């Protein structure tokens, strides 16, 4: 029996690796065809991507980007585990970063008080913004997809309204950029200087902690168990005494709180202010990354790194004379391939399992005297 489970595990392991591998290979093939169609040599493009992408300054860039993307992926994944589609991560993190930037600019307390306050403010704002959609779903049955999409636009409008010179913003020199009041230097998060390769955001440590917490809470606590149960079957969960409504509201709030962290590496490590050039759209990137990583804490990390790698290297491809749209093509194809590959592999695995069970049952039927139990 033990031997049997270990064999199945080995197979599952192979299948588990096969799916993302299949997706990435398929994406590479499609990309190569696209590059060929534009009359360029895909081999040279891929080799440029590898040499450029693995240079040390590129690695720092990729890690910095991945920090942000990882937080986005986790925020989305929390909803996914619960069968909730939190499209509103985008609005949640932007509003959170904006509010945190306003608070941070106004605070005059020492950094060790200010930084936690800024982070808490961001998490609270994100949580509150997500809670609106959660409460609407629980009390009125409004689809969280619709509610969060609309809340994204509302967040944009609120920021647009408040980020004006006579409100919460101030005009930068040159008169072309409005920003919030910059954070005092004591409120900057620590950076890791890697010499010529650049500066690594210290927030990467927070991202790792969030990943650990995500793994622990979902996989090792009663709450996480309840959450996953509701995600798999609401009726089964409520039959076993879990309050589904409470779980929906709570997970939406947690998802929003993590979303609030997405803007923090940018705010605390890089820009130190919120202005019109603050990155937008990362919430949607998070959806792709959560899909790619299958909601697994390590999978999401790999997805985030891959995304950073692709952005870094395709930026350079444009420099080398390839079309800049290649990035969009690769990313789109990967996401599509991942979804398809997981499904294909899942069905294949299911079929294999059924065959195996069938074979064992047949063997059992053929030897009725042997009353050994089968796993």
């Amino acid at each position: 029996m033990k031997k049997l489970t270990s064999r199945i595990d080995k197979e599952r392991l192979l299948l588990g690796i096969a799916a993302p591998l299949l997706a990435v290979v398929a994406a590479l093939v499609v990309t190569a065809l696209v590059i060929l169609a534009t009359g360029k040599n895909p081999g040279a493009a891929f080799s440029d991507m590898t040499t450029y992408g693995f240079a040390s300054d590129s690695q720092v860039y990729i890690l910095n980007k991945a920090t942000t993307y990882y937080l986005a992926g986790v925020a989305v994944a929390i909803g996914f585990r619960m069968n909730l589609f939190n499209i509103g991560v985008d609005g949640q993190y932007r509003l959170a970063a904006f509010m945190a930037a306003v608070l941070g600019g106004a605070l005059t307390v020492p950094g060790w008080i200010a930084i936690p306050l800024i982070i808490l403010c961001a998490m609270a704002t994100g949580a509150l913004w997500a809670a609106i959609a959660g409460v609407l779903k629980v009390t009125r049955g409004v689809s969280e997809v619709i509610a969060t999409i609309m809340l994204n636009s509302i967040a944009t409008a609120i920021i647009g309204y408040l980020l004006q010179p006579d409100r919460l913003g101030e005009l930068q020199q040159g008169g072309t950029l409005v920003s919030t009041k910059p954070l005092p230097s004591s409120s900057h998060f620590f950076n890791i200087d890697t010499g010529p390769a650049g500066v690594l955001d210290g927030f990467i440590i927070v991202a790792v902690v969030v990943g650990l917490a995500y793994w622990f809470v979902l996989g090792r606590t009663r709450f996480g168990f309840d959450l996953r149960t509701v995600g798999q079957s609401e009726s089964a969960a409520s039959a076993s005494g879990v309050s589904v409504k409470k779980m929906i509201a709570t997970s939406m709030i947690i998802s929003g709180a993590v979303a609030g962290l997405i803007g923090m590496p940018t705010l605390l490590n890089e820009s130190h202010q919120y202005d019109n050039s603050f990155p937008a759209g990362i919430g949607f990137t998070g959806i792709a990354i959560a899909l790619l990583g299958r909601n697994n804490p390590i999978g999401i990390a790999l997805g985030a790194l891959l995304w950073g790698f692709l952005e870094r290297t395709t930026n350079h491809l444009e420099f080398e004379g390839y079309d800049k749209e290649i990035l969009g093509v690769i990313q789109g194809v990967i996401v599509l391939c991942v979804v398809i590959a997981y499904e294909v592999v899942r069905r294949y695995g299911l079929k294999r399992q059924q065959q195996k069970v069938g074979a064992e049952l047949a063997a059992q039927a053929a030897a009725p005297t042997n009353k050994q139990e089968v796993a």
Partner: protein
Amino acid sequence: MRRVAKLSAACIATAALAVTATACGSTSSDNNESSSSSGGGKGVKIGLAFDVGGRGDRSFNDSAARGADKAKKEFGGEIKELTAKTSDTEADREQRLSDLAEAGYNPVVGVGYAYAASMTKVAAKYPKTSFGIVDSVVDGKNVDSITFTEEQGSYLAGVAAALKSKSKHVGFIGGVDVPLIKKFEAGYVQGVKDTNPKIKVDTQYLSHGSDTSGFASPDKGKEAAQGMLDNGADVIYTAAGSSGNGAIEAVAGKKGAWAIGVDSDQYNIPGLSKYKSAILTSMVKNVDVGVYDFVKSVHDGKPLTGTNSYSLAKDGVSLATSGGFIDDVQAKLDAAKKKITDGSIKVKTTP
């Protein structure tokens, strides 16, 4: 099973890190041996980092491209162009400027205010390269800040709109509600009101805050312009990068309505020739002059630095006369221009 999946993932992660570690130590610039040895030789190597929309937006970016093209024609050399995406972060803009400087392009021009923060950093890293930024001010010994008095040119556009409007109702469409575009709005509205205080001005922005899609969405421009036309406006001024193409298209579809173009003389843009009979004039912002002057100064060995403001007095901004549609009001426009240049009219920069 899940434990095994996790284990395998951990293995992959470790392997990836190992690959990573082996490459540590060498930066991308070390890998690039052939670079930065360009130096004098023949002509200039111009690095152009465009804003969203890029070359072909028939407006702002194209104007900068024209300046670089002219310089290339005169001095020889080459142009390398990179274009911004709407999803850009600070790191992407930094990478774009560094890539250009690293490869020996000198000068490097950042087209658009979005490059301000990244240029501050990159210019300090490459002190021997001359940088130019359009529409913003960057401190640095090797940076030329090329700014324009858009409000003055827009004032004249407002005067022309007020004189040409029959319905006494005009419109302004801005790409994104950033301070730069508000300068256009402020000047335009003031120009209209100074000419005829009874005229109604509709104002609309296509996108807000950090969403820069309003500069590159002709569909949004078209929709906004259509809305204003339906409301009774008959002269529409659009300052919205390539979104303006859509607005011009919508205006051309209505008899008697006029569009005012921006940045480039849009009457003469081949891609818009279908609609040119509806283009009253364009508020030309001579980004090409600014870029050309800067490239020339680098070529001559005396790079411009500090803030160089291209005002109405210096013909940095002007109203295009192509098509001859504003010939009948030219005298009044000249009078207004004179008042601005001699200081008797102060044009506001915020609405």
